[in-house]
């Protein structure tokens, strides 16, 4: 077959394959267009998982007649004025969305620009443009896409169920809505109850409101504001407290210059920042907004623009880690679990049902009867195999503790963790605050305090290292060796001294004494793999901290140890003075708080 130029419709369909992958990508492109047009309100309507119909209405600037005619042509855009691909300030810029959609679906656009006497409408079907026609619309733009992929049946076959596609659309709109709290969004359609996110204040002020709306009340309550800035790169956002976790990293949102992106960078950085608070398999919920000079970032990596490249990825990563660590240390004591959520409250209601009064009820067998000494009523049920119960004397039933307890000093009650009132089951301290009560897990809390001390001394005194009699030679591939050696200084800080041993091998000269006789080769490989993926030496640090955590566990007050009031209060005061004392080093909360309001709710007083 001779080489020939493909017809334009085919070219467009091929290009469309990259931009318009599934209905959600259509929604993303169109909502981004609306945002670029300066809309303050965007309504999204989908039907049949977006396959049958997608309608996006905005109140943005609209297009003039001439613009509209050009908009559906390939590589036509209003967003890239000086052909400078390096400083992109809008969400879109490639000029591909509308023609791509138009080539695989029935597209109709109605738009009214302020400079036009009336609105204009245009439709494109399978790449064929209709003539412009006058239409009725007061302002903004309405884009309707129906029968998506009718022109490319192959793509149609690969779509998932309507439900899945609808969920993907929802996720896309959520992400965009998170980035722009100042824009009101409505998401409606056949497969869902309509959701409206009303416009909030722009920027950081409205962020908490919008993120709370989207990520849930738990997040709103526990979110910690984080921020850091260096060399023109600014990281800000809200991080969920370590007690609010998910099993996967899907609850982590990164926005670069307002553009929602998926980047491994954030997963690695978040993992490093939360290493101290969470078990390995739990992931926090957070949304981070990175703002930097558009020249420092390349959004043009992929037509769908979900990936970005930073010129200085290390700086952005360091900044994210720094901002998160800072925020967590500052607010670490306050955890989401510190106050009890509604579901937990509901489960606090009494679980037992009083037995119905028997027909042959006799007061002599009821609790109201006076106790009769020395005669335990013979129980026929006991006569069988069961071990006989040991009857007891009448020496009084277990009673409330009437030992005199001095009322806690008022100033202790004013403290965040209150004044210790009692210890229950030898394990939990109950303390009274000015407006509620706090239950503290004594072992978890003390463990954290001991751990923080150990960590501080490790940082101050450095890691003790064991020199090896015979350096261990670990053979690795050349790229891995390079990667390890480039971080030799950092590893050295943690007590692991390595040096080059020809191409494809490193010699381990010193290992951290704390790790004992662990296999250096396996550890290096593990490290190298992690570095390749996340660009950090976390596993080594994690191992050291794990040892410290085990030591802390053994060195702290156990459950079951009876604490005196003075000791309990000392523990509470120490917790207040220690950052991160809200979680034990396994990420569990060290205390929960029940406010008076919660208690009143339990009793139906509210």
């Amino acid at each position, binding site marked *: 077959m001779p080489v020939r130029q493909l017809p334009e419709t085919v070219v467009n369909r091929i290009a469309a394959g990259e931009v318009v992958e599934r209905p959600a990508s259509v929604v993303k492109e169109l909502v981004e267009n609306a945002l670029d047009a300066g809309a303050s309100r965007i309504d999204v309507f989908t039907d049949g998982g977006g396959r049958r119909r997608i309608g996006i209405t905005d109140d943005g600037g609209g297009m003039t007649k001439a613009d509209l005619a050009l908009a559906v042509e390939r590589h036509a855009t209003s967003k890239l004025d000086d052909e400078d691909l390096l400083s992109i300030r809008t969400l879109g810029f490639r000029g591909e969305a509308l023609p791509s959609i138009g080539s695989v679906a029935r597209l109709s656009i109605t738009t009214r620009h302020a400079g036009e006497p009336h609105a204009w409408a245009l439709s494109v079907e399978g790449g064929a443009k209709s003539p412009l026609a006058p239409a009725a619309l007061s302002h903004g733009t309405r884009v309707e896409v129906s029968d998506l992929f009718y022109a490319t049946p192959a793509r149609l076959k690969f779509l998932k169920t309507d439900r899945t596609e609808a969920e993907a659309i929802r996720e896309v709109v959520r992400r965009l809505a998170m980035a722009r709290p100042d824009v009101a969004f409505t998401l409606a359609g056949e497969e869902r109850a309509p959701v409206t996110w009303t416009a909030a204040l722009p920027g950081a002020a409205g962020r908490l409101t919008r993120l709370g709306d989207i990520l849930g009340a738990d997040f709103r309550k526990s979110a910690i504001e984080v921020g850091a800035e260096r060399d023109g790169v600014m990281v800000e956002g809200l991080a969920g407290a370590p007690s609010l976790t998910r099993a996967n990293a899907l609850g982590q949102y990164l926005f670069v210059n307002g553009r929602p992106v998926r980047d491994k960078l954030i997963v690695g950085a978040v993992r490093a920042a939360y290493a101290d608070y969470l078990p390995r398999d739990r992931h926090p919920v957070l949304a981070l907004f990175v703002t930097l000079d558009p020249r420092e970032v390349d959004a043009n990596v992929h037509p769908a623009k979900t990936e970005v490249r930073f010129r200085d990825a290390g700086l952005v990563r360091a900044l994210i880690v720094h901002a998160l660590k800072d925020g967590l240390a500052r607010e670490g004591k306050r955890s989401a679990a510190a106050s009890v959520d509604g579901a937990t409250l509901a489960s606090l209601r009494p679980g037992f049902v009083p037995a119905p009064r028997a027909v042959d009820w006799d007061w002599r067998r009821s609790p109201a009867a006076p106790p009769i000494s020395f005669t335990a009523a*013979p129980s026929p049920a006991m006569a069988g195999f069961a071990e006989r119960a040991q009857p007891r004397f*009448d020496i009084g039933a277990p009673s409330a503790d009437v030992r005199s307890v001095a009322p806690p000093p008022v100033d202790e009650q004013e403290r965040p963790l209150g004044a210790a009132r009692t210890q229950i089951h030898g394990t939990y301290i109950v303390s009274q605050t000015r407006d509620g009560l706090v239950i503290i897990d004594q072992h978890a809390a003390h463990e954290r305090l001991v751990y923080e001390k150990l960590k501080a001394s490790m940082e101050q005194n450095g890691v003790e290292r064991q020199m090896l009699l015979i350096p261990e030679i670990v053979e690795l591939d050349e790229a891995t060796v390079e990667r390890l050696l480039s971080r030799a200084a950092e590893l050295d800080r943690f007590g692991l001294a390595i040096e080059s041993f020809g191409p494809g091998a490193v010699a381990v000269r010193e290992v951290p004494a704390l790790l004992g006789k662990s296999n250096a080769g396996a550890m290096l490989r593990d490290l190298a793999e992690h570095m390749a993926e996340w660009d950090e030496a976390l596993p080594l640090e994690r191992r050291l901290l794990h040892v410290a955590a085990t030591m802390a566990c053994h060195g702290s007050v156990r459950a079951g140890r009876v604490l*005196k009031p003075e000791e309990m209060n000392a523990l509470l005061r120490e917790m207040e003075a220690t950052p991160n004392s809200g979680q034990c080093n396994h990420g569990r909360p060290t205390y929960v708080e029940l406010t008076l309001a919660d208690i009143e709710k339990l009793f139906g007083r509210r």
Partner: protein
Amino acid sequence: MKVTVERAQLLKSLGHVHRVVERRNTIPILGNVLVRAEQGRLSLKATDLDLEVTETLPAEAAQPGATTVPAHMFYDIVRKLPDGSQIVLESDGERAVLAIRAGRSRFTLQTLPESDFPDLAAGEMGHAFALPAADVKRLIDRTQFAISTEETRYYLNGIYLHSADSAGTATLRAVATDGHRLAQVELPLPSGAAGMPGVIVPRKTVGEVQRLIEDSEISIGIELSTNKIRFTIGNVVLTSKLIDGTFPDYGRVIPQNNDKELVVDKHEFEAAVDRVSTISSERGRAVKLALSAGKLVLTVTNPDSGSATEELEVEYASDALDIGFNSRYLLDIAAQIEGEAAVLKLADPGSPTLIHDRDAKGALYVLMPMRV
């Protein structure tokens, strides 16, 4: 502070006081021992806020003073120093350290200020009397086993020490019960104890006093008020808080009219119960006592493993009776009998049994049967 002390003496004293110190503490100074040098002596003090032990030993105090050091570490250091060495303790207030020197060894321990150390001993005691160590030991040894560990009945977590009238004579009486069994031991009331309040001495305190009595020839000073008790045992002074509660009216529990009297040889009975209870896999299985004229048959049946039976010749003249007891409890009480024979006074299989020594008076035990 600078003081020189003999290692063996210091080790013995530290051995006494460091036991009180908990290994893990939320208040750092509670992990420390207070070291005070005075004219010609050195005193050591440790506390857990409920209990305080102070011991004084002879020493050459070149410069008086006081400080506190981590108790367990101090004890371990002294323990590992060579026997027969002279230990020099010297504190440096500026650097907050205590130097420990012996021979060529030198240690420095970080100290915490002495002024922060809690003082339990303060306050007037009100009542004071003295008892021979052997008597104190007897009061404790014979009742300790019955102390309850149930936290909800915290007022049973100790020995109830009080003055009582026993058939016209004033006695000092110790009682403990866990609801299943009760132990009561009494002595003639020592002078100075008249009018003393009834007090509940906590289990831990009882155990410490028991351990501190090494020489039963000496006399032990006891002082008490309504909320504290102090034992002076040689050069050791132990002060403890008391359990703040009301001991139940135990008198109601002691049966007065049990008419069936069984007399057993203490050693034979103890050995037989021990033998038949082998068959029960877990503690606390019932041993059945089948009584008939002059004969006692002990039986344990364990549905999982089998059964055991043993016959004893006993003095018994009343009607035949079957009664069951927790074998563990029977053994505990049998172990308290000092003489050759024990008397069990029974009423019926569902009522408490009274047990005492046939020859010696002053101690009695009550045991609740199990249903068999």
